[in-house]
């Protein structure tokens, strides 16, 4: 494993480069195929509304995966992510026209033993905070 970030070069409060990810219906189709989750709330507007959702929503796991890119892009070697967890607080609503934008930022929140750090992520879509308690534990070099 070969993280490009050294434990000695970060401190609590070090910010990761933030990213904004466009999310369109086609992304949810691709993710459904890749993950095997064909729940129609992620591609069928009529069905989503019939179960009281405002529109098609992104898979929570899609949002989690995209948000995780802020961490893996920062550390370089994705195997350095030894733990990753999120709460799904609000859905990412993906209208047919215009899609959504997932905005993610991250900050080192704790330096642990064994040259590991905790990164706290913040993820929003519009005014909604879509992930809560989003944390990764990263093995640095």
């Amino acid at each position: 494993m070969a993280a490009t970030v050294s434990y000695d070069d970060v401190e609590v409060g070090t910010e990761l480069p933030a990213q904004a990810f466009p999310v369109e219906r086609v992304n949810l189709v691709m993710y459904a195929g890749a993950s095997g989750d064909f729940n129609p709330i992620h591609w069928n507007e009529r069905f989503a509304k019939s179960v009281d959702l405002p529109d098609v929503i992104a898979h929570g796991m899609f949002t989690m995966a995209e948000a995780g890119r802020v961490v893996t892009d920062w550390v370089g070697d994705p195997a350095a992510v030894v733990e990753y967890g999120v709460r799904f607080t609000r859905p990412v609503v993906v209208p047919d026209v215009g899609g959504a934008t997932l905005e993610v930022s991250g900050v080192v929140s704790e330096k642990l033993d064994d040259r590991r750090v905790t990164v706290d992520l913040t993820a929003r879509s519009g005014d909604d905070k879509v992930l809560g308690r989003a944390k990764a534990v990263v093995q640095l070099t």
Partner: protein
Amino acid sequence: MSTPDVVGRTYPKTPVYEVGREKIREFATAIGDTNPAYHDVEAARKLGHRDLVAPPTFAIIVTVPASVTAALDPDVNLDYSRVVHGDQRFEYRRPIYAGDRLVCQATIDSLRERAGSVFVSTRTDIFTEDGEQVGSAYATIVSRAPQKES
């Protein structure tokens, strides 16, 4: 509500899932990630890995069949049509690689009801076919209370 002794129940191991290079590439593409460790075997090996590395959430492909088996246990009595994902966490002892042959086994950690919504939490342990534990996934799914008439 369902019988309390479903908490702690462990379910049968899933069939072997063979982690493929093309599936890793497809998954990475679906999440828009061009990281060479997911796509280029030589790049992964230069980082010290035996083959392509799976992204940190890739394991969901193998853990969901195990955890859904638990959630669909009739004793859990879940209305699956109203289910959304509540939370998810992965812990890894080592990365998942292309070529791994994985099996999973789920256990129900807790079952709760709050304001008409039902929360099912599971732990799914991920092993190689040979019994090496690769990691664990912790998930909560929520069957949402019906909307009140207004």
